């Protein structure tokens, strides 16, 4: 399930982007240290493979519903966590651009949810220990299904947490979790069995591919779970720290302190009073996107009133009518402007192309 821009607040989106970019930088550094350059085309083409594979639908047994592959686990098993994360991140980036899955701000969250968990939790902590030594097909199936399920469960929880922190949805945490987890249990089971199927298929048909890839792949021998785990822990702590930093910056408190500094008395008609001033000050002083732009929750403004504010029941119907009219007018103007530019352009190109075929 792809996280969406519309459900995110800038702070949460930026935090997960920071975490994702940090992990990309970390993995690139790791890969650069001892990368067989043969890996670069292999990674790239496998990325295109995952992209193509995700476009193929298949019927999920027993339900008739159709599903498609995620691919994170297959990549991790074949390429190892660092390379797999880079490939997964690039696949998701291409998807975000060409299919607009989720959007560009949510891309940070999506890479995090679908890349970090399979590559740095499910693969090193579950799949690898379970398939140690010469694992037979049954063990591979078991390990893939367990790790697939866990990766998707953690990813789903992560989506819930991101949505909760952004505060755009009304869903209470418990309901949301109950909604997400069972669905992702099913998806995880399918993902795990498909992963196992493909790995076993390749193992049966061309075993040397898996062997040769895993022998050339960086850090396959000396990758220690402890190291990876510490890495993930550090990243998680950093992200958590940043999150709480963003989240705890209470806008009400900030507003209160600004009021103190500028000595504005408490205005009952605050509606138009402090909000614009406060916003301007914010724009000038803030360097963080959230508080650079976000309106303080407590400050009612214009025709829009936050829920639960004292001014809320006193909305006159006039305000909403004027808002409606205003919206219609603005949209109409935008449409006209766009249409006019289009017409002018068409005429220009037509002039330029006289005598030629104008499609």
């Amino acid at each position, binding site marked *: 399930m792809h996280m969406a821009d519309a459900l995110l607040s800038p702070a949460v989106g930026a935090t997960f982007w920071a975490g994702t970019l940090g992990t990309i930088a970390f993995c690139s550094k790791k890969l650069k240290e001892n990368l067989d350059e043969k890996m670069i085309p292999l990674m*790239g083409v496998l990325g295109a493979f995952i992209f193509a594979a995700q476009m193929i639908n298949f019927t999920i047994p027993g339900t008739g519903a159709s599903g498609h592959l995620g691919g994170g686990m297959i990549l991790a098993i074949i390429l190892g966590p660092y390379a797999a994360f880079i490939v997964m991140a690039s696949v998701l980036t291409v998807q975000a651009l060409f299919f607009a899955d989720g959007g560009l701000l949510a891309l940070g969250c999506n890479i995090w949810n679908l890349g970090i968990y399979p590559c740095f939790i499910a693969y090193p902590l579950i799949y690898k220990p379970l398939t140690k030594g010469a694992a037979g097909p049954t063990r591979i199936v078991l390990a893939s299904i367990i790790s697939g399920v866990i990766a998707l469960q953690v990813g789903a929880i992560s989506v819930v947490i991101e949505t909760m922190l952004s505060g755009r949805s009304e869903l209470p945490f418990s309901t949301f979790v109950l909604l997400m987890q069972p669905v992702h249990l099913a998806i995880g089971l399918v993902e795990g069995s498909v992963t196992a199927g493909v790995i076993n298929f390749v193992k049966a048909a061309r075993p040397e591919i898996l062997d040769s890839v895993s022998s050339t792949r960086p850090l396959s021998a000396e990758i220690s779970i402890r190291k990876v785990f510490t890495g993930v822990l550090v990243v998680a702590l950093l992200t958590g720290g940043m999150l709480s930093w963003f989240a705890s910056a209470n806008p009400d408190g900030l507003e209160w302190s600004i009021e103190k500094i500028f000595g504005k008395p408490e205005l009952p008609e605050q509606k138009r009073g402090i909000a614009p001033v406060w916003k301007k000050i914010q724009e000038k002083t803030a360097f963080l996107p959230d508080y650079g732009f976000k309106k303080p929750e407590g400050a009612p403004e214009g025709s829009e009133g936050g829920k639960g504010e004292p001014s809320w029941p006193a909305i006159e119907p006039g305000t909403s009518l004027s808002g409606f009219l205003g919206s219609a007018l603005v949209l109409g103007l935008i449409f006209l402007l766009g249409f006019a530019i289009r017409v002018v352009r068409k005429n220009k190109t037509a002039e330029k192309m006289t005598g030629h075929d104008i499609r």
Partner: protein
Amino acid sequence: MTFDKEYFNLGYLDMLSYKDSVIHRLDPRIKVLVTFIFIVTVVSFGKYEVYGLVPFFLFPAMLFSLGDIPVMFIMKKVLLVSSFAFFIGIFNPLLDRQPMYLFYGVAVSGGWVSFLSIMLKFFLTITSALLLIATTSFPGICYALQKFGIPDIFISQLLFIYRYLFVLVEEAMKVVRARDMRSFGNRGRGVKAFIALLGTLFLRTVERAERIYRAMLSRGFSGRLHTTRQYRFTSADALFLAITVAVLYLLRVHDVVGSMGRLSMRVF
């Protein structure tokens, strides 16, 4: 949507990015930057904001018309995006039933307002993301990302995926067609056939990677991809950046709909 159609749309979107227009000629760095600023500004509006979002339709409208992008094509793509936002947002009207606006005697609950806000944001952000790729070639975006300091390995991955995407999707299309011809209804489209199909595709992919690697080696590959196209930051870029940032700022700070509404109330 069928596989063929999806592939066609992918190629068409890519083709659009090689058009020649005012917007297409801008430096990709500027377009990536402005798109991000736009998305963050839109998303930064509070939960119950509806009117504040309306003027932001100006940005996609400008890109559509100045960039000469077919509106219906992008709209169809926006509608087809698997809308997680919709499924989560639709719970708001069920859970938040406190009336917020009175519209001709009909009370509109806070839930519907916040749902509408989510859908407006969804539309604006998704449209602007698609407009970015429709007006900027993919290698251009990679170039921009590289200039923004994204690691080389990641950039070369993006370029590789883009290069082989169409090749592999076409190959996948062949096997999917073969499967569909041999299957009736859901029979034959199960996991088992899918695994075999994917495995075959995987083997072919790896073999292709080996061939590509040898071809690259013989052309002097040393671990890094180079781009020949150079972009220059022109005055048009500076102008575009300055205007969009200024307009976005004004729209964010000023209640355009409110003043328009007051104006229209006075007129009527």
